[in-house]
């Protein structure tokens, strides 16, 4: 199974690169969600189901949503000023 673990780690490196290289924050949210899913798969392959569940719930669902609401609040506050 070493190809599975190696492949998952390479995918995690690529997903991290995608998060950094998407400069527009509204695009970066999708990259963050994809990063969360890739890391969930990696933790699952590394025999850590608890950690995979926690990573899925937090970094794939809740953190991108908080980012989205922060961007909306910043845009609306600027429009109000």
């Amino acid at each position, binding site marked *: 199974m070493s190809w599975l673990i190696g492949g998952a780690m390479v995918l995690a490196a690529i997903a991290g690169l995608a998060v950094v290289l998407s400069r527009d924050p509204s695009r970066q949210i999708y990259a963050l969600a994809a990063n969360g899913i890739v890391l969930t798969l990696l933790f699952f392959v590394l025999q*850590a*189901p*608890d*950690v995979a*569940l*926690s990573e899925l*719930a*937090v970094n794939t*669902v*809740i953190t991108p*949503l*908080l980012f989205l*609401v*922060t961007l*909306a*609040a910043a845009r*609306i*506050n600027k429009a*109000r000023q």
Partner: protein
Amino acid sequence: MTTPWRLALFVLALIVLVPAVWHVALALPAFGAPTEQYGAAVNALLTATRHVTNMVAAVNFDVRGFDTLGEESMLVCAVTGAVVLLRGTRGESMTDRAGKIPGRAVAPRTDATVLVCRIAATLTLLFGVYMALHGTVTPGGGFQGGAIAGSSLMLLYLGEGYESWRRMVRSPALDVLEGGGAFVFVGAAAVPLMLGYALLQNVLPFGTPKDLYSGGLMVVANFAVGVSVAGSFGLLLLEFMEETRSPDSESMPDEED
């Protein structure tokens, strides 16, 4: 500090650190070595002594429960800090009715979205509660169940709209969930101390392994942490959403978001 200076410093740090990282990577034990002593002892002993089958939850709530107490307090403090910062500039007038954004054109939600979100939010909430309660038996635990229940609150917002969501999920209820969960956890830690044992010592009967009630005090701690985390994430979403609204404008009943 301007960007070229920062990049120059970054490259300088890389020149120093990359050989060090390479040297350390070659010197670390090989990937895939057998488990070290502490982990092997936990794996071998905890099922018989604590009657649980999920070793990670046992480490989190019993063997290293003091660290989880610190982590739970840190989460409560972080959410409190966020709420204080946001309400400090916005004002404390937290009304029951949701604020409005004047002059913003909104599109109503489609029926498919509302239906799917209603089904999904209910199932997700049930799943989160199941995961928090069965933390000592299957993969899961207090934190995972609480995060899943928190995301069910967000699914509810997605399906219902901010106005209806504020009517269903009231701000005092979220405060009670978050603070009450942390209080029950701290109480579960302090009760053995008052009875004359060590802090967080398992004083309840252990129960049978693979059963819902197994691990004694761990079930109480799991549920308390799950409730507190769900309340924390719901409160964060509510405070962030209030930032996008102006609370002093009147709410028009036919306008929804």
